[in-house]
């Protein structure tokens, strides 16, 4: 059975159709999931897509964490369900406390839409479990606030627990430790700034994104193999109150 992926749509999301298209092209099934729902029952995996949820008002993800669906997303993650946050989805996951750290404005203070090199540095996540460490991929980025930051203890925790799943080959935005993507301590929640769904069709350019998304779909169809885990790990690093406050 192909995994059934729910793609969460907040008002202001704009990559939801692209995520659905990518999942379908790679053999999964996908449906849109309105942010106002309070259950995610029936889905094997969730994607929080790119865009500007709630207009990025206040700061990216700051309002989306209060959308009704986020409580269900948090429970799903806690039960080990695969959750992938792409770009704005990564920002939402950080604001919701499902991943540690935060994304601030790019060094250089400009929006960046370009294709960059990234390196897989950990196989301990749903996004990379089928991709050997050291693999280099070319994937588009498209963000203004993609400069990942966290406190030193969180950073060493991420490093020690092998949770930095993707690093930029040439850092485009000032991210600490060249971080392009991280995962939760259980590896089932992943956030990344690059857009793998934009790199799946040779007609459009590089197809390296399909390497990551295939791994994600593979992990989603045999979920249960992922260790059940609690939110973001790294004690003290998640915002007070946690998800669904």
């Amino acid at each position, binding site marked *: 059975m192909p995994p059934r992926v729910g793609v969460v749509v907040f*008002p202001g999301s704009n990559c939801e159709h692209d995520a659905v298209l990518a999942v379908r092209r790679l053999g999964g099934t996908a449906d849109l999931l309105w942010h106002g729902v309070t259950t995610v029952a029936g889905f094997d995996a969730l994607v929080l897509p790119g865009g500007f949820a709630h*207009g*990025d008002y206040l700061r990216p993800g700051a309002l989306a964490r209060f959308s009704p669906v986020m409580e269900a997303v948090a429970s799903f993650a806690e039960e080990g369900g695969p959750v992938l946050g792409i770009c704005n989805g990564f920002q939402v996951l950080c604001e919701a406390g499902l991943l540690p750290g935060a994304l601030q404005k790019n060094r250089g203070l400009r929006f960046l839409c*370009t294709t960059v090199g990234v390196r897989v540095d950990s196989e301990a996540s749903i996004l990379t479990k089928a991709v050997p460490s050291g693999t280099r991929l070319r994937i588009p980025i*498209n963000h203004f606030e993609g400069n990942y930051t966290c406190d030193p203890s969180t950073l060493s925790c991420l490093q020690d627990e092998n949770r930095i799943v993707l690093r930029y080959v040439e850092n485009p935005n000032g991210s600490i430790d060249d971080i392009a993507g991280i995962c939760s301590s259980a590896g089932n929640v992943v956030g990344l700034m690059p857009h793998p769904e934009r790199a799946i069709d040779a*007609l459009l350019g590089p197809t390296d994104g399909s390497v990551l998304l295939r791994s994600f779909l593979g992990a989603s169809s045999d979920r249960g193999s992922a260790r059940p885990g609690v939110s973001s790990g790294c004690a003290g690093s998640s915002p007070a109150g946690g998800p669904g406050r």
Partner: protein
Amino acid sequence: MTGTLWAVDAGQEHSEGDRSRFGGGVRVDSGPPGVDPGIHRALGLTDGERDEIETVLVRPPNHLELALFAVMWSEHCSYKSSRVHLRRLPTEGPHVLVGPGENAGVVDAGGGIAVAIRIESHNHPSAIEPYQGAATGVGGILRDIFTMGARPIALMDSLFFGDPDDVRQQWLIEGVVAGISGYGNSVGVPTVGGELSFDACYRQNPLVNVLCLGVLPTDRLVLGRASGAGNLAVLLGASTGRDGIGGVSVLASSGFEGEDSAEEMAKRPTVQVGDPYEEKRLIEACLELLEAKLVVGIQDLGGAGLVCATSETATRGGVGMDVDVSAVPLREPAMEAYEVMPSESQERMLAIVTPDDLARVEAVCRRWEVRSAVVGRVTEPPPGQPGRLRVLDGMDGEVLGDVPAAALSEDAPLYHRPLRRPLDHDARLDDDPGALVAPDDCCADLLALLSDSSWVYRQYDHQLFLNTVEGPGGDAAVLRLAAPGLPDSDAGLALSTDSNPAWCAIDPRAGTAATVAEGALNVACTGARPLAVVNCLNFGSPEDPEVMWQLAEAVDGMTEACLALELPVIGGNVSLYNESFGTSIDPTPVVGTLGLIERLRRRPPGVSLADGSTVVLLDAGAGSTSARRRPPSLGGSRWAVERRGHRNGRLPELDLAGHLRLVRLVTGLVSESCGSGADGTGPSDAGPPLVAGIHDVSGGGLGVTLAEMAIRSGVGVRVAGIADHHELFSESPSRVVVCTNRCSELVGHAAGAGIGFRVLGEGGGDRIIVEDLVDVAVEEAASTARRRLEQLDRPEERDVR
């Protein structure tokens, strides 16, 4: 249309039209008692126009009514100076579903899919407040597209500034680019291309033209008209504030006196402020309403706000409309009716809805968190009379204003402004740059002409929707023809924006024709067949007879080229009063060209060179064997203008019949190469593609064309037999450079099509070499091209890259 013809000579304006059918107006009083006799001038109306309004109403207008007429009869809304000329443009074609006059032009792309396209200027707002000016330009053009029922899937921008080394220009460039980036990215429509030009004539008056393309299932096409007396007018989206009042009349319809003067500062409140998040929700809500067939008609609120939306929908539908001004949700208290009606607050739409569907409309809006308010109702015109626009205080309350709806829009004044060919025009044509002393160093001149705008488009999301096959920086953007809700298709679209103000300044007719020709060739270079064009005509003051001559000539040049190339003009926009201190910008018609790729299966070869390939020039002007038929002219070339400050001379000749042959040849060659032939057979897998890279010869001539191909592919080139700087920098039209590994086959096709050809050299290595003239490393050329814009990054940011 029974437009009144106004003569404007010597300021003696009078009406020739029969206005009696508008007679019988009811005397109403509103606004401040005793209207100031000069108030119409402050609103941008002439004395003659004020008198004409009184004739229409058969009584003096009150303050509110004057405000309605002032915005609707502005140059921006009424095209009163340009309409007599625009009528000459060819607008029809077998695949045209909607031509000019609606919110956007629409063509049939086959397979049950239609494409909507429009281009518009936001020049003056961007000059005053670059970020918001450009941002709201994007917002406005998007609404024009989804008003038609189409989902916007691509934006393009044509930007014109003064010298980028000047700090004030840098402020403008950064603000405009940030505004487009901030709004376009957030609203979720990719910006897939455009153009960026610099010339001193835009120093005080930059140009920001924005083009939007949308797609829709053909059967969802909707038009902006009201019908059915008793139906409701529902205002959707943002609340209404005092921003943008008189934007069309005060700001868009007069020139500038200079930077930072008190007068310019005073115009600042006429620039609107955009909210892309509001627009994003509005797009989704409106498309859902249209998909569910819950609206009878729909119209965006742009220039002239509610006045324009209500009067235009009523006029098009042959009905009247009552507007309850007290029902309009306001952003600030105590706004007067004459402020509410023309306000240009952004992100608003007017939907015409049957009373039965209102509850469902409101439910869709609630889901998308879009405000909706019933602000009016459609009224039946009295028998034998036109529909009226009435502004009321409460639906059954006091009548604040009452005018014939059509008098505001379709029957707006029409001017035959005087035209005059400049007295020194012949002398300018005879002053040819061919006589200029040859450069000591052609290589240095070539490097100075290179410009890489990736600094700009790196700030735009150009990939959203997974449609962008070829993004910014090529000859044309190439998109898959796909969007949620569309039937499956393996066709593609090509889109290009082009302009050539230096040519148009010398000869507006020939320059505009050449601009149309270049657009057609640009889309052909991606394998597309050119389908239709839209235009944005940016000119100086229509009150200057020489500017009006430029406009008339440009329209005639566009007409000639469009007829010869079989391209209908399906929409347009005119921006006048682009002047400062009494000096007009160079005439700047911008042409957006839409092309269709029948089957898009592989990436087109693009602006590229391949190692070991042969580099061939195809030249429609060169007969069948040799590309040396005519002496290459430098008239209007970037080399002459930018390197020597020489803006005169005769333009290279354009043979439209030969150009059409070249366009067809190129479309055929490229579509075969990328496996997109209409027969679906594609290239044989045995050999290399017929075309491995292609680029048209335009601004900067052959030298710049070769350098751009090398820079974009990172592969060098060596060519020989280019005699001198004339040949290197001439911008003779109807030429493309092709890189191929199947040279004899390629030239066979060219000869068969009656197109001249010439083998220039070969691709390979890491240097750009034109024997005896140019020798530079590809990397050095690339970094030189980037430097001009990257200086806008602060030093610590440059270190990042």
